[in-house]
């Protein structure tokens, strides 16, 4: 099979992924994460970040084994909270995976863009605890108060990696922010203005998200079962996924190992409802992404769904997929069954899962699956990963406020361009 014609665009710079950095509840680092995806590992465990007394449940997908000092060397102590630590550590890991030293980075122009939903909202909660304990806002800790703004997630990476000549833009488009960030990196490199981008997403388990989804009735009482007829909602999660994007010329010139090619993406806005998912908006995002990538529907080997495990998302997203793909859609999996909903990190971790699937020839499973919902007639690759020749993958994401971002990754090299 050759798809050369559909993935080469005249006059458009090609963009490839040369580095992955992963902090996740099912494994830190590319190898552990790959193993976790293949094994169908679950990241669900008791919450340690905050006191869950009174919530009636205490499960989330926290990262159990995070050692910030392994990755963070240059930042002043206390410069970032948990979300920032995740972002910076994943960025450090990604540039090491890409084989880029600090000397290689130095004054090089680049885009650094981290997507997030809640940023350091955990710190905001701690500040409020301090205020309530003191009975006075003057009881708040200045170190925390200085680090609660989301912009720092991206500037802290520049500071840690000693990269002053960058655009550091944090994208706060909630639960689609990871794909947004990768798309922005793609556009920045395609435009020719830079040939390097560090992009992805980061979020940390926090009381805000837990209380919000509990109040919304969208928190699962046990595990996450996307597309299952008995699905009961999400588990909140955390982590970071950062990708090193590079122009193909830059990657080839330095002999970099190429994980995958970023073929394109699409952004659509529902302009309809502040929280409900929208079938037409999602379908439009998918079509825009396929168009941008120059990919035909039948070329997509699997879809990494937004797949949160809520009633509303999974049936709406399925309908949108069927609108685009007809009655025979590609296999559609939900890595949130393993990772929970890691919010701004979610679609970045999803994109990395897609890249690893391409590289290692497998499709990650949708775990905790018992019976597929008749409203979601999809092959969700239930419970066990399958071996497959994966060439082109679509990674979906949607967010409150009607924001959809869909990313298309493809294999780079002779597998596609035979």
């Amino acid at each position, binding site marked *: 099979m050759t798809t050369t014609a559909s993935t080469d665009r005249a006059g458009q710079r090609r963009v490839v992924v040369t580095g992955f950095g992963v902090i996740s509840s099912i494994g830190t680092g590319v190898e552990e994460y790959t193993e976790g995806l293949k094994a169908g590992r679950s990241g669900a465990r008791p919450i340690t970040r905050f006191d*869950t007394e009174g*919530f009636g449940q205490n499960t989330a997908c926290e990262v159990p084994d995070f050692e910030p000092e392994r990755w963070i060397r240059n930042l002043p102590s206390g410069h970032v909270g948990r979300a920032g630590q995740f972002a910076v550590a994943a960025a450090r890991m990604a540039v090491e995976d890409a084989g880029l030293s600090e000397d290689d980075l130095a004054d090089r122009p680049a885009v*650094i863009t981290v997507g*997030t*939903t809640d*940023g350091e*909202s955990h710190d*905001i909660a701690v500040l*409020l*605890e301090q205020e*309530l304990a003191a009975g006075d*806002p003057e009881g*708040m*800790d*200045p170190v925390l*108060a*200085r680090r*609660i*703004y*989301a*912009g*720092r997630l991206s*500037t*802290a990476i520049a*500071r840690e990696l000693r*990269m*002053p*000549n*960058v*655009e*550091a*833009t*944090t*994208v*706060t*488009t*909630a639960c689609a922010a990871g794909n*947004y960030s990768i798309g*922005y990196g793609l*556009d*920045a490199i*395609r435009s020719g*203005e830079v040939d390097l981008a560090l992009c992805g997403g980061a979020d940390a388990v926090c*009381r*805000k998200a837990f*209380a919000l989804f*509990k*109040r*919304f009735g969208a928190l699962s009482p046990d595990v996450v079962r996307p597309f299952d007829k008995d699905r009961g909602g999400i588990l909140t999660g955390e982590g970071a996924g950062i990708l090193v994007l590079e122009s193909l010329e830059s990657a080839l010139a330095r002999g970099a190992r190429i994980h995958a090619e970023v073929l394109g993406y699409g*952004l659509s*806005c529902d*302009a309809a*409802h*502040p*929280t409900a998912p929208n079938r037409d908006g999602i379908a*439009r995002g998918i079509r825009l992404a396929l168009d941008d990538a120059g990919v035909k529907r039948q070329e997509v080997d699997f879809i990494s769904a937004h797949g949160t495990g809520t009633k509303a998302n999974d049936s709406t997203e399925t309908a949108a997929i069927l609108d685009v793909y007809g009655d025979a859609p590609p296999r559609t999996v939900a890595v949130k069954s393993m990772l929970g909903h890691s919010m701004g990190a979610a679609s970045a971790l999803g994109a990395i899962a897609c890249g690893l699937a391409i590289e290692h020839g497998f499709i990650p499973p949708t775990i905790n699956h018992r019976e597929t919902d008749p409203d979601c007639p999809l092959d969700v690759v239930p419970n066990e990963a399958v071996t497959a020749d994966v060439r082109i993958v679509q990674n979906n994401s949607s967010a*409150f*406020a*009607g*924001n959809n971002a869909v990313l298309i990754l493809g294999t780079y090299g002779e597998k596609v361009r035979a």
Partner: protein
Amino acid sequence: MSNATAVPRAALPPDTPVITGWSAVSPYGIGREAFAAGVRAGAKTAVMADAAHGTLPSPEVCTVPGFDVQELLGKRGTAKMDRLTALTLVASDGLLRDADGEPAVTTDDLTGVVLGITMGSLENVTDFLRQSYTNERPFYVDAGRIPFGSLNHAAGATAIRHGLKGPNTTVAGGRAAGLLALNYARRLLGQGRATRYVAGSAEEFSAAHAWYEATAARPGEPAPLLGEGCGLFLLEPAGTAERPPLAAVLGIETRVDIDDDPFATAGACARRALERAGVGADEVWAAVPCAAPSDAGRAEYEALAALVPAEALRRVPSMELLGDTSAAAASFQIAAVLSVAAADPDSRGRAALVTAVDRDGAVAAAVLRLLGEDA
């Protein structure tokens, strides 16, 4: 207004992004006219804070006068709306609707929205968490306020209000956010993802924000005087713009201050922006720093003073007059340049430099070509 001829659009490459409209909701009042008049007069805006804010670290604030959400936006859907969203929606009406409330700008499925923020509505998130900590159960929180707590809500609500289905994005970057948003719009226009953009930035005043800022201030520094508001621009490629351009965005440059040296970083950023735009430092007609009430803000001013002609820095009254408007600042700086330029025919064809420094390290500079108000 003047009869001087605007620079002909044909002189611009067709893909140059141009600003063809703007609006502001600011401490000078609601709308573009109030903002322009306030800027030209160099008026102060600080007032004693409304008692409804409770105890504040500093008694004076620069809030938007007469900003009654329900009066401006109607009762439907506004009872629990956060102030940040309300400020943005009122500014969007000023940009996209005429005096009768009818659409004044052509929009389609490729009309994008990008809004720069700091951390959304800090009042919303703090109140939400306060309920979680103090109510009978930790999830007995006001569900009606939840949608407004999403950091991307204001941008999404703008899309819903005006039916804008193109790329809809929220970027965070404090005082640099307005320029990051403009750069985002420039890039996506350049890649053909949108035909035109509503781009700008917004900040709300709240007691929560005031206390975080006061707490974050270094020992001995006074609590900063805070402002608020929203500035929005209509950005289109010159070749397909439906209205006469007010200014062309010649370039936006960004850096991160990784060594706590804002003087060097702001200077390098501004020099590079001018160089890329092909504008000599001595050609700058107006330079507008963000005037942050901090060492970084003072260093930024010094860096510009060492770079551009002294009269350029005097052309636009200091942004201090609006208080520290954080994420709204950079959009107000651009709006201020456009306001001053509109009243001065000598501005036509001249260059303006707008810069920002943020506490989190982001530094940005934009170079505009002023093109005139008439035509």
